[in-house]
């Protein structure tokens, strides 16, 4: 993989003063692995957080580059609620290793969405995460944790799944390969 990525670097170098832009379809790597689904079970009056962690591999050699921006340009999930009433919100965390995502500052917060009974509620997950995670996206490997935080103000558990349906991260670099 390293050698292949180096080949990409050669191409990037040729763009000279321009930017190197990576549109990483993170969802495509999550789809079908189980990591695209976050089952939740929220007992009454007990806020609960459940997470899924995904490794993102980027081309190496950009350690000296300047990260212009990191944005989630396309992102969506369905809250497939199967019972109870409450709210579900999403938070995204990034770190250089899996464990670090549990202590990293929050990069993106998607406000809570209300769910009730048996229903499917679409949620849009987009936002600019520049600044919080810039240095991470100069590395070869970044871990992303998607956390679903739920509240339950009712008397019965809130149950269901948060199912990711799209997630594309756009990284814009001023490449400095030399």
């Amino acid at each position: 993989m390293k050698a292949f990525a180096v080949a990409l670097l050669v191409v990037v170098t040729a763009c000279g003063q321009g930017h190197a832009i990576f549109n990483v379809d993170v969802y495509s790597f999550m789809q079908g692995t189980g990591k695209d689904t976050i089952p939740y079970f929220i007992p009454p009056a007990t806020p609960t957080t459940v997470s899924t962690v995904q490794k993102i591999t980027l081309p190496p050699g950009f350690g000296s580059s300047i990260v212009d921006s990191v944005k989630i340009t396309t992102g969506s999930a369905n809250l497939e609620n199967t019972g109870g009433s409450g709210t579900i919100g999403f938070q995204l965390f990034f770190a250089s290793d899996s464990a670090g995502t549990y202590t990293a500052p929050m990069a993106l917060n998607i406000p809570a969405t209300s769910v009730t009974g048996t229903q499917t509620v679409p949620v849009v997950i987009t936002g600019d995460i520049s600044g919080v995670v810039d240095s991470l996206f100069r590395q070869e490997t970044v871990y992303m944790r998607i956390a679903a935080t739920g509240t339950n103000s009712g008397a019965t558990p809130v149950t269901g799944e948060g199912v990711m349906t799209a997630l594309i991260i756009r990284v814009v670099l001023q490449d400095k390969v030399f």
Partner: protein
Amino acid sequence: MRTGVVILVVAALALVVPRPVHAQLSFDARRIGMAGVSLGRDGSARRYNPAYRAVKNRSGGGPGQAKATIPLPLGLVTFFQDHPPGGWSSDPMFNPDSAAFNPVELMNLVLNPPVFYQLKQAPTPTNDIEFTIGKNQLIMNLGQTRVLIPEQRFGLGMNGRLLDLGFGVGGVHFGVMGFVNYEIEFALDTALRRVLRDTVGVQPDSTYRILTDAVVQTGFMPTLSFAQRLTHGKGAVGADSTESADDGIYIGGALHYYLGGTYARGVGPMGFTVGNPVFGAAPGVLLDARMQTSNKPFGKGVGGDVGVAWISGPFEVGIGVNDLGAELTWSDTKIQRIQYDAAGDSISVTTTANHVETKTKLPISYLANAAIRMGTGTTVGGDVFNAGRHTVIHVGAEQRWGPFALRGGVARDQRKKMQFGFGAGIRMGSFGLDAGVFTHSNSLGDTRAMTLATSISVY
């Protein structure tokens, strides 16, 4: 520090700029105004045709023949205004630490030394490059940089002689010349070319390759050469400093004993293969090259040059062929196999043979030239040149009216692209001022550039 390294590299590259540039780079605005054709008996004719050693330089003002040409490097004025020498350490052109540093722009500078004024520069791709990466998707949108991806086989090469020291008696000349030859050729397979040029996505279960063949060799060659005028034409009998004084047939030859200093050759495919889905697993790297390097100097070989020229009044034609049979035998060579080791994600180098004999060849070069000087002040000429790579053709003409001259020409360069030149000049006594405009594709890209050359000729 790194700026200094870059400047040194640029200087080194400038010394070995590839043959296409040499073929089109001249400091004579008259030649440039005719798209590169030379109507005189300049260094190119003597370099490639040993018969011209026996032909006198046309002196006393044969039309279009100057004793010396002094370039007026207007381009350097502009260049040093834009890039003051004292500021190169912070100049984005030379400073790789700068965010604006562009290696393509720097390479174009090497390929186009800014001696003359650039009327239209080849654009340097400075756009964004976009990669779309998904589990079953890899799309590379190189934007303007796509012009850097060659449509055909792409190569750089030079077969040059660096110096010619020696002495001669009569038609015999003994000397020592240095030689340097490098040939680097790449060929992208169709699939990879489509991915890079046409923004076609990488297909699952596919392989993408670049085939590379590169050789570099250098050394020196003691040379014994001979040039003789075989016949005197009718016009030459009793002629003195007239256009007919040189009439006749000339022949020449040179025998070289090549003593190679060092060489290296690498041949093999490089590329990558993807599975299904594209990023279901890490793409596999294809690298299986063979590398030959000389352990000791003094690869030996024998070769020769031959040439003939015929001059009859206003008509002149010549052909010279260089490095015939030039095959060097290297008695002590190491052969290595360079492979990509998928298990270790590293490159392994194994010696498959050592202290073995290998051979290399120098490419055969030839130059055929012709010119005719009409009585109306018109001179038409052309040449066909090949230095082991693609053939370059120049055709040009000059029309003189008293002190004034108009010139024009067309050329087909090594990239098989048509190039054009036109120019004018005025002669005042022993001096002439000439200007020539020419198009060229001496850059990393397909777009033509246009340069205005100016020079003073001393007659």
